[in-house]
C-alpha cells in the first residue's frame, strides 16, 4: 500500500514535469510561429554592425530572462524582489517605452539608443553594465529586444533631436543656465540645490504607479542615461519616457540647453567632468534659486 502510493506519486511527478516543459516550449515558440524573426524588425543596425535576433535567443535566456522574463514583459522570476523607489521594475519590452532615447518623447528609440543602454547599464537599478559582451552580441540583443513588441512592426523610431556642438564654458553661460533652471522650475522635483528634495519629489510615481525618486545631483549618482555633457543635454530635452521626467525640447532653445547643462554640472559633487563649472559657480558666488522670486521676464 505504502510502496504503491510512492510509485504513483513518482508517476504523477513525471506527468507534471512533462506538462510543464511542454507548456514552456509552447511559450517559447509563440513568437517564432508568428514569423517575427523573419521580418526586418528582427535585425538591428549599430554603426556598421548588423545585429541578428536569432543569434540572441540563447544569450537572452542566459543573461536577461531572469528579470525581463521569457516574454520580455519584465516579469522574470527575479522581478518580485525589485523594490521601488531605488529599484524600478525590469523594463517591459512588449510596451516598448524606454527611458534613454535620442528621439522625441512618445517615439521609439533608435537601435543605437538601446545598444548604448545595454552597455551602460542603469545606475541605481539592478541593470548591470553589459560591456563584457562583444559588440556583436549586444547588437544581436537589440534585435531580440525589438521582437517582443508589435510596435517595431508598425512604427519607425523617432528622428533624433539635433544637438549643436558644445560651446565654451563661460561664467555668463553658467549664470544663464541657472536662469533656465529657475524658469523651467526644475526645482519642483530636483530641489533648489539639486538634492532631489523639491516639493513634488515625495509624490512622484512612474507609469506602473510605483514611487520613483528624482535625480539627486549632489550625492555622486550617475544619471541613468549617461553622464557625458551630451547625455545630460539629451536627457532633459527628450525626457525619460515611463517616468515623471518630461521633455523640454519645446521650451528650451538649443543654446540655452548647453547653459543648463553647465549649471547642472555645477550642482554635482566634484567628478571627472565638472571642475570648471564648480570653480565658476564658486567664483560667481551663485546662491540656490529662490522659488518665490518673481519670474524674470
Amino acid at each position: 500500500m505504502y510502496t504503491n502510493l510512492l510509485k504513483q506519486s513518482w508517476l504523477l511527478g513525471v506527468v507534471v514535469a512533462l506538462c510543464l516543459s511542454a507548456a514552456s516550449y509552447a511559450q517559447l515558440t509563440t513568437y517564432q510561429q508568428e514569423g517575427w524573426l523573419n521580418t526586418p524588425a528582427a535585425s538591428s543596425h549599430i554603426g556598421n554592425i548588423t545585429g541578428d535576433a536569432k543569434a540572441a535567443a540563447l544569450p537572452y535566456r542566459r543573461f536577461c530572462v531572469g528579470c525581463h522574463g521569457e516574454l520580455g514583459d519584465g516579469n522574470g522570476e527575479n522581478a518580485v524582489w525589485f523594490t521601488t523607489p531605488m529599484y524600478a521594475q525590469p523594463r517591459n519590452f512588449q510596451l516598448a517605452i524606454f527611458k534613454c532615447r535620442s528621439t522625441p518623447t512618445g517615439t521609439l528609440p533608435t537601435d543605437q539608443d538601446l545598444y548604448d543602454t545595454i552597455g551602460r547599464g542603469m545606475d541605481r537599478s539592478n541593470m548591470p553594465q553589459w560591456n563584457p559582451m562583444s559588440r556583436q552580441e549586444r547588437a544581436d540583443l537589440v534585435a531580440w529586444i525589438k521582437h517582443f513588441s508589435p510596435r517595431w512592426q508598425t512604427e519607425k523610431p523617432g528622428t533624433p533631436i539635433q544637438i549643436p556642438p558644445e560651446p565654451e564654458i563661460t561664467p555668463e553661460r553658467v549664470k544663464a543656465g541657472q536662469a533656465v533652471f529657475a524658469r523651467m522650475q526644475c526645482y519642483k522635483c530636483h530641489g533648489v540645490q539639486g538634492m532631489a528634495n523639491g516639493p513634488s519629489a515625495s509624490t512622484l510615481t512612474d507609469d506602473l504607479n510605483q514611487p520613483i525618486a528624482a535625480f539627486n545631483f549632489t550625492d555622486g549618482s550617475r544619471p541613468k542615461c549617461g553622464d557625458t555633457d551630451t547625455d545630460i543635454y539629451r536627457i532633459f530635452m527628450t525626457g525619460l519616457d515611463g517616468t515623471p521626467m518630461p521633455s523640454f525640447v519645446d521650451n528650451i532653445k538649443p543654446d540655452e540647453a548647453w547653459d543648463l547643462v553647465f549649471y547642472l554640472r555645477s550642482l554635482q559633487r566634484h567628478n571627472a567632468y565638472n571642475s570648471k563649472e564648480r570653480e565658476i559657480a564658486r567664483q560667481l558666488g551663485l546662491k540656490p534659486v529662490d522659488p518665490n522670486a518673481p519670474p524674470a521676464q
Partner: protein
Amino acid sequence: MKQQRNQRLAAVLAILVLVGFGAVMISQKASAAGDGKITGTVKLDGAAPHMRGIDMSKDPFCDKAHAGNAAHSENVLVGSGGGLQNVVLYISEGLSAEAANAKSTQIPVFDQKNCMYTPHVLAMDVGQDFKVETSDATAHNIHPEPNPLTGNIPWNQSQPPGAPPVTKSWKAPEMIHVKCNIHPWMSGWFAVVKGPYATTDDNGNYTIQNVPPGSYTVTAWQETLGTQAQKVTVAAGGSAKADFAFKAK
C-alpha cells in the same frame, strides 16, 4: 459627317461622366454627415458622493489660486436634479465606416488652469487635433497614460509658465487618463472615440449632432461609474432621445 458623329459621341460621354461624378458626390455628402440628433440627460441614481478636498499647499501658486475656496476632486460631478457632468456619449455600433471615420475639424482645448484641468474630460475623434495649453504661472508636465499597444503612444511634455500650446492627436479609440507628476492631484481624461460625440453639461444634458439616419447603439462613459449602452433609431433630419441613469457607488 464622321467627324460630327464623333464630336456628338464625345459630348454625350462628357455629360454622362459629369452626371456620374455629381451623383457620387451628392450621395457621399448625404451619407457622411447627417443632420439628425441624439439628445438626452444623464443622471446619477442616488446621493452624490463626497468629493475629496485637495490640499495644494505644496505649490504656493496653486494654493493662492484657490484661497478661501478649496478645489475638490472631480471624479463624479453632479448638477441640479442629479444631472451628471462630464459623461461622454458616442455611437458605439451602427455607424457606416465612412461616418465612423469622419472626424471633427474643430481643435478643442485642454487648459491647465489654477492647477486643475479645464475641461476635466475632453472628448475628441480619432485623428482629431487637440491643443494642450497652460494658463498657470507654475510649471506643469502633461502626461497622458494610454496603453501603447492600442496604437496610442504615451508622451510626457513640460509646460512651464508661458509655454506654447502642444498640439496632438490620437490614433485609436481609448479613454486616456492624463496626469501631472508635479501636481499629483491633477487628473483628467482624453475620451477618444469614432464618429459623432457629445459631453454632458453641468446639468447632465447632451446633444450628439450630425448623426446620419440609422439604428445605433449609444454608449455613455463616466470615468468612475463605467459605461452604459442604449439602442436608438434616428430618422433623416430627426431627433432621437436616450436618457441614462448611473447608480451611485
